[in-house]
């Protein structure tokens, strides 16, 4: 039981997929200019990692070693297709904003990395927990970045204005720089900085 807990909690902070393992930065940073798409992206990725981990873990004794990459890609691609269709049906606006980045979950290194490193050698339940943990670790970073970028860049959260008009009258202005993609990198660098100086 303790192992399960450890499997779940370690990727959220100590072994975070983005800031420590350096995985899965690719497809996600461009979607974090607003909070809402970041949350949807986090949920979508968590679902894909968790279920692909379970499926691969169930199949792990039947897959020949040489073709495992192809099998993994097919499992992930099928799950991502399902997620994409669900998003299109129930959250069309967000799915438009995320555009190609839902499809890019397929090549997200977190998914492949967890499949290779964990699901191939573990039972379905721990694999599921590991998938959820890693997905959440990823989602937390996305939400932090999305929060700061939307708050400082547009003065709103979830599209509602947060910073009162009074402050704008005093001369405050939205920082247009925060909307530009490179700022996501700088915020992540700051998160890494804080995390590392805390640990050492």
């Amino acid at each position, binding site marked *: 039981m303790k192992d399960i807990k450890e499997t779940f909690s370690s990727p959220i902070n100590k072994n975070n997929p983005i*800031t420590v393992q*350096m*995985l*899965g*930065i*690719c*497809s*996600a*940073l*461009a979607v974090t200019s607003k909070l809402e798409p970041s949350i949807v992206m986090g949920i979508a990725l968590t679902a894909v990692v968790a279920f692909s981990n379970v499926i691969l873990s169930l199949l792990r004794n039947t897959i020949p070693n040489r073709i495992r*990459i*192809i099998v993994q*890609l*097919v499992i992930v*691609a*099928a799950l*991502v*297709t399902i997620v*994409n*269709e669900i998003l299109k049906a129930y959250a069309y606006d967000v799915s438009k904003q995320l*555009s*190609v980045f839902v*499809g*890019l979950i*397929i*090549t*997200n*290194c977190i998914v*492949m990395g967890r499949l290779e490193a964990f699901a191939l050698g573990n039972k379905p339940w721990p694999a599921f927990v590991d998938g959820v943990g890693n997905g959440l670790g990823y989602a937390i970073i996305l939400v932090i970045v999305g929060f700061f970028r939307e708050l400082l860049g547009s003065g709103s959260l979830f599209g509602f204005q947060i910073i009162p008009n009074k402050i704008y009258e005093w001369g405050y202005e939205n920082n247009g720089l925060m909307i*530009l*993609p*490179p*700022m*996501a*990198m*700088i915020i*992540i*660098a700051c998160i*890494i*900085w804080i995390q*590392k*100086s805390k640990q*050492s």
Partner: protein
Amino acid sequence: MINTFVSSIFMENMLFSYFLGMCSFLAVSKNVKTATGLGLAVAFVLTCTVPINYLLENYVLKPGALSWLGQSFETIDLSFLSFIIFIAIIASFTQIIEMVVDKYFPSLNASLGIFLPLIAVNCAIMGGSLFMQQKEFPHVGVAISYGLGSGIGWLLAIVGMAAIREKLQYSDIPKPLKGLGIAFIITALMGFGFMSFSGIRI
């Protein structure tokens, strides 16, 4: 066509405006030589897979794309299969390249070899195909120039980054920021640099 080519190198650079291929970018940009090798491989695979996927998209997957097979096929819509087809093309294509390079250019294989399997899961390649699908290019020539341009843009980015990181070894960085942290900040600064190209039209 030329406009697509130039804008995909600079204004819509895969790395700096969409962060695609970030993982291998950060992992491999430690010295210029290996970075150039990976960059060339990515550029080559992008130039080949984007047009292949373009043809597949327009003659097999799109709603009504199968009409060349006859009247009764006109209503078929296979677009939900596009993710699986694209990734299958990319994975098998990298496999083929690996085998060809291994057979006919063993010296090239020695320097590129380790990167080729990595390319199948490089987000930039898949991203190229997905953007191609979204942009709906008029003919296959534009798709080729888009693939080539994005590849060259990626190559430029990774070589520049590797050169900066080589110099960076001698600089005095706050300890917790060393390694990954500073790499992120440099990428962001390079991104700002590339942004100054936006607005150029040819």
